[in-house]
């Protein structure tokens, strides 16, 4: 069985999720890691054409992409171009009898579904779904040159968000520190940022906070925001509306800090702290700092 893994690159090399799917592709069969080159900025039409041409010639049974914003954009359009089955945000995947059995969430995380996709198929895989073994060899990446003539859009400019600080992308982070209304105001995010910095964590937020304009939309975790599945999710002053829980309950370990012992967030927490956030947070940051220094 032939499996492709489409590789996405950041400034520091292939993205982690790309390495994860490349390793999974190897496990599944005859693997090829492919990257689209020649684009300063990803755009679907120049990327999809050459990939589809190559896919028709090489006839892979399965194409894996990372479920990043780019991966989901490319994966869906490529599947449509090829007329193949498509499934997004897989958290597990097995292949037998000409079909892929995929585990994925539906209803914004409220349901876990097992679906069967006929092959050939394109599947986007959630970051962290397949753990990368340490010391795994970096894949040899084949490149496919983008077709600039297929472009129908024109890039104008990039507008950075005011609060973004060049942090780790939320969807791929192994640790996420999220803040809610319990933080009382945007000025108190300095403390959240400090903790996140020490933990190497991405910043998240509840919808109440992004709606109030305290934090940019892209940090919103939950339904109509991002779904995250880190090893550690720390919810600070978040009460746990069902829409928020949908976006983070698949995290491996959940820590919640809230002054209300009845808050719904405690129903999904592995470790809960009931108490004053502003007393707890500096003390916790200090303890984490000590622990990191000792490690």
């Amino acid at each position, binding site marked *: 069985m032939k499996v492709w893994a489409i590789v996405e690159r950041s400034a520091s090399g292939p993205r982690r999720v790309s390495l994860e799917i490349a390793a999974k592709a190897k496990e599944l069969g005859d693997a090829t890691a492919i990257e689209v080159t020649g684009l300063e900025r990803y755009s679907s039409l120049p990327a999809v054409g050459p990939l589809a041409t190559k896919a028709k010639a090489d006839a892979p049974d399965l194409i894996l992409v990372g479920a990043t914003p780019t991966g989901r954009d490319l994966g869906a359009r490529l599947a449509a171009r090829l007329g193949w089955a498509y*499934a997004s945000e897989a958290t597990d995947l097995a292949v037998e009898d000409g079909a892929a059995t995929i585990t994925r969430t*539906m*209803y914004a995380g409220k349901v876990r579904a097992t679906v069967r996709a006929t092959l050939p198929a394109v599947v986007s895989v959630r970051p962290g779904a397949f753990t990368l073994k340490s010391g795994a060899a970096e894949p040899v990446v084949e490149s496919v040159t983008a077709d600039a003539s297929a472009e129908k859009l024109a890039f104008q400019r990039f507008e950075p968000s005011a609060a973004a600080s*060049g942090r780790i992308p939320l969807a791929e982070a192994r640790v996420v520190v999220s803040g809610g209304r319990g933080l009382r105001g945007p000025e108190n995010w300095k403390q959240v940022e400090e903790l996140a910095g020490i933990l190497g964590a991405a910043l998240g937020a509840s919808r109440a906070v992004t709606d109030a304009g305290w934090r940019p939309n892209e940090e919103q975790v939950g339904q109509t925001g991002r779904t995250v599945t880190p090893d550690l999710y720390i919810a600070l002053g978040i009460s746990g509306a069902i829409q928020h829980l949908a976006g983070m309950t698949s995290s491996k370990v959940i*820590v919640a800090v809230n002054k209300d012992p009845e808050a719904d967030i405690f129903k999904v927490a592995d*470790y809960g*702290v009931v108490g004053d956030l502003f007393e707890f947070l500096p003390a916790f940051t200090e303890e984490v700092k000590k622990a990191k220094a000792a490690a």
Partner: protein
Amino acid sequence: MKILVCVKQTPDSTVRVKVAADGRSVDASQITWAISPYDEYAVELALERKDADPSTTVAVVTLGAARGRDALRQALAMGCDEAILVSGQGAETLQGSAVARALAKVVEEAKADLVLCGRQASDDDQGLVGLALAEALGWPHVSTITKFAPADAGPAGSFNGIDVWKEVEGGHEVWRASGPAVLTVQKSEKDPRYPSLPGIMKAKKKEIPEKDVAALGIDARAPSLEIVKMEPPPARGGGKILKDGDMKQTAAELVRLLREEAKVL
């Protein structure tokens, strides 16, 4: 400019979703239906354009069960000008890529300049239909947008291309589409508007033409994605709760637990 917004009727996001007795669908008896949240943002963005330029026409379409009429009525009450229901036998079970082909027919018949969809429906969470629709039309798409505006001031009512703000990691990319395009919406800057009372009255009187999906003459065959099993997400809870203590001690204890027990620090 004519904008067509594609909406899907899905379970209201505030309700719990229960798996049905067959173990492969959800219990429909417990559901309140609503416009899928991202689609509602798409309606809002389209209506904001109409607010800014009243010569804009906003049509809304849904494909699926006949109850989708309620979602259309809601969109009309918010201020959309016209609504189209695509329903009939097989409409509810149509696979995503076939839905996209059916919608492409509607776009062509409506002679829309611009199509807006939510970035994904809140039931299947696939994020396929909008992009497959662009593919079926041969149009470019921009996904996860939060804003769009006319690129240049042209003669009133004419379509001179648009600038589109696409949400990406760390900010927004601005892309210009000089022809028709499909945009999938991440969020609108303002919350979707509530229908006004006059809006509701007007919407009640509007005809909602129903198209039979079979009459669109599309190839309904599609690579299948079959649901084998549905289950609630793994139960959580029963976690350790630390309270009533001195916060310094609590913080130290939590760090110890995260290191030694959970092994995540």
